């Protein structure tokens, strides 16, 4: 059976050993051929224009700029190019940075070379989607509201407020003085930006600080 035309890959990384290791890995995978290697944003851009590869694998930190700039430049005129961002940096910011720049996949440098090849395959098939190993976790972290944060005591008081208890009732339930209970309540109002009890409870429910069902 004759193999289909292999996919051409351009490697952009200023570390020669990394490029070498990746090149060997792509050679082992028979559906890829390394078209070229570049060590800077400028060189990467030039080779991408000249060689017209199917997939570009790029590092983030490059001597003349960031790989994300390269991604943006490439994506601007090559909608169907597969782009894989490969980085040593950790942090959700990096992942979302790659996503926003227009990359097709994000792989960290601690992953085995098979992961890079899998990402390159994904990128060549669906360049305009985005794949990353911990994308779901990162999305969840990003979507979790970083809204008001109550202390455990305040959370307790908020629960009692939602139950309908007044200042005296709360003080009695928590074995504290009424003035302490009042301080907690005003603190809660301040943190939630609420003017009264009803508002505080509404805001707390919306921010996920209270479950909807009555305690």
């Amino acid at each position, binding site marked *: 059976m004759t193999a289909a035309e292999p996919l051409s890959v351009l490697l952009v990384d200023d570390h020669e050993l990394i490029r070498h290791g990746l090149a060997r890995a792509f050679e082992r995978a028979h559906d890829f051929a390394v078209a070229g290697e570049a060590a800077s944003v400028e060189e990467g851009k030039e080779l991408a224009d000249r060689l017209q590869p199917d997939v570009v694998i790029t590092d983030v930190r490059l001597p003349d700029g960031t790989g994300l700039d390269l991604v943006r430049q490439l994506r601007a005129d090559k909608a169907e190019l597969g782009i894989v961002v490969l980085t*040593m940096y950790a942090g959700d910011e990096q992942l979302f940075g790659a996503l926003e720049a227009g990359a097709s996949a994000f792989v960290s440098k*601690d992953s*085995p070379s098979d992961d890079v090849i899998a990402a390159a395959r994904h990128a060549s098939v669906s360049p305009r989607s985005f794949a990353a190993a911990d994308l779901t976790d990162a999305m969840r972290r990003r979507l979790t509201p970083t809204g008001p944060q109550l*202390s455990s005591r305040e959370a307790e008081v908020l629960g009692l407020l939602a139950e309908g208890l007044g200042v005296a009732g709360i003080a009695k339930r928590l074995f504290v003085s009424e003035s302490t209970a009042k301080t907690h309540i005003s603190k809660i109002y301040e943190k939630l930006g609420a003017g009264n009890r009803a508002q505080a409870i509404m805001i707390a429910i919306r921010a996920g600080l209270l479950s909807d069902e009555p305690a």
Partner: protein
Amino acid sequence: MTSSDRLGLTTRAFFLATVLGLTLAFGDGDAYRGLVGLLLLAGVALAVGRLTPLALRWVLPVEGLLAALIAGAALPGAATLLPYLLVPPLLAGVSSGVTAVLLTAGCEVAGLLVAGLLGSPSDAWATVAEVATPWTVASLGAGLVAVWVTQLRRDARRTSQASYESARTLLSQLRTVARRLSSGLDPVSMSEQILVATSEAFGDTQSALFVRTEGGVLSPLGYRGHLARQSLVVEDHLTEACWRTMEPALGVQASGRSSTRHRVVLPLRAGARMIGLVVAEAGTAPAQSTVDDVMVVLDQHAVRLDTALLFDEVRSLATTEERQRVAREIHDGVAQEIASLGYLVDELTAHALDEAQRLRLQGLRSEITRVVSELRLSIFDLRSDISPTAGLGSALSDYVREVGARSGLTVHLTLDEASTRLRGEVETELLRIAQEAVTNARRHSQAANLWVDCRVRPPYARITVQDDGRGLGAARPDSYGLRIMRERAERINATLEIGQRDESGAPGTRVAVTIGADGA
């Protein structure tokens, strides 16, 4: 060619050109001969001056003497050579000083006397003197003006140097102080001293000290008196008046049912800048003389406090810079090299001869992956910082959630932050201590849960990091991580407690760092 060489050349060329013009217009045979003599003289003087710069102060008087002899010999027939006499004193004025100018001018007078008066018939002496005197005086004057101008330029240069010199002196003093006593430049203890000084003067029951932080926000540095934290806030017209005028502001504080209290807001001034405020409340209205006395003490302390705050800030900036540099170094160096080793092992694995070898190589690969992940997190640690707008709580929660999730820990985070901020330097150190505690838990404890509790009530703050891992047993008490945390805590005068998660004996470690005293 040095600038003094250039000056010598252009001055001589200018006056030779003048003399040449005058001689062509009005000169006679003597004048032409003299002109050639002056040309030779100027050339020799320039050459000698360039060859042996040290002999410059002798070259000019000799040049003056010879020029006077040449110009004087042409008198009284032609006075066209006399302007050249300005050259030697002028140059002497620029290069040396008044003495050299006087010497040079004296030599010229001597030369004129010898050549002009003695060489001319006695009935022409009056004419010779009349023609030569103005030029002699002019050359002396030119020399003295040159001395004066040169002096002015030198002074100007010295003034621009002066600010560097005073900065250098201050910095070297700071270095000495900082080395000798690390607590000598501690803003918190300085703030206590200031509050004690005000209390003694006013007999006040409560006082508070606020310093201006980077964002222009007032951050409390110290409270004195049990009600100070609640009652002494900074949003009132007295504070505003004090801040605007940089003068003490006094007023009456009607505080509800209790008796009338008198409030004083005192500026902390360092030079023409406000660095903060002291707010105090007393039962009786303080006398103006007392306020004046306190201000004398405060002005002194304020400069010290400002220095301590600046020193802290500089140190913090330097550290941040260094952390970024180390992060880059790890990122570009060892991390990439180990990562590329990983690719090499991948290749070996692909070509393994048998199953046993393949398994061994896979084991090696997962070790390499673990090491590279650790390095990535170290780089992340080194690069993470507190944003000026978000504050300690949000930086801490971002860090903990991300790192916790990456290492499979379930993170329980409680944040309780007041609206006021800690000083930037303190926030940074607290974040670093918490990072270190989280890192220790992640690396050594094999815990499933991580509890992080952060309570900020400036100037009080407490962060607790707990895990349900195997506890401190395995960690050496002198371990690097623990030492770093202790050093950081000492730097901001915070207390660090490291121990069992709870007394009942449940496994796990607890690290708590506390700064200031809890007032609420």
